[in-house]
């Protein structure tokens, strides 16, 4: 019987990321991965993904490309517009009730 070390079998074709690491950091990552019952690759990816999400979700500044900054500046200058999609969402009755 085959024994699988992987956490899950992904159906998505996986990409490769090559990174350089000094021996001390590598040893640290290996110890932490072993303590988490993960292989080093899974451990690094999970930890980095968590950090990446945190960075994006808590940005103190959102830098726009030239195109985006131009479009956003123009939108700011326009008179206030009613947003039909938002209006529809506000009108839709939720399928739950508030406990008051």
């Amino acid at each position, binding site marked *: 019987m085959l024994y699988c070390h992987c956490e899950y079998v992904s159906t998505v074709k996986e990409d490769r990321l090559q990174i350089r690491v000094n021996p001390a950091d590598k040893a640290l990552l290996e110890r932490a991965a072993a303590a988490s019952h993960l292989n080093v690759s899974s451990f690094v990816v999970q930890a980095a993904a968590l950090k990446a999400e945190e960075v994006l979700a808590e940005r*103190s500044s959102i830098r726009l490309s030239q195109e985006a*900054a131009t479009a956003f500046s123009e939108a700011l200058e326009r008179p206030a*517009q009613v947003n039909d999609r938002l209006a529809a969402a*506000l009108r839709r009755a939720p*399928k*739950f009730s508030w406990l008051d």
Partner: protein
Amino acid sequence: MTELRRPTPLDPGRHRREQFDSGEPILDEWLRRYAGQNRRRDTAATWVIADTDDVVVAYASVAMTGIDRSSAPMELIKGAPNPIPALLLGRLAVDRNYANLGVGTALTLYVLATAIELNEKAACRATVVSAINPAARAWWERLGFHPFQPDDTAELDLYLLTSEIEATLRRLR
């Protein structure tokens, strides 16, 4: 009908979040492990909708941010502040057992009402959301949010102007 408590700030001592399952492991993990700590670091505030047993059904994390337009042509930025003060709705997750009830929409509308209040008291010209994947982007677009770069399918940052929220609420009143 399901009864839920109105949005309140996360209280780590009271709200139960061990079983929270949005289908997005990163968002579940963040709520279970980091949400309480984060509040102490004050980088983001976590708001929750809980059921009658204080089990978290949905959460949002909200922080102040600035929209940096320095790459736009000078004449467009002139006269307006840069960066533009805004609210960042960095995370929104709903437990799968409570999907399709309108809980995520309700929590978003609560945050948008906060943006209006902040705009009156200080300045908050927009609410920015950071979609976790393309399906989430489509969800935000259905609510009326605009991708900063609509033609770029990889764009996952969207915004809604506070002036739009105000105008929309006035129309419905």
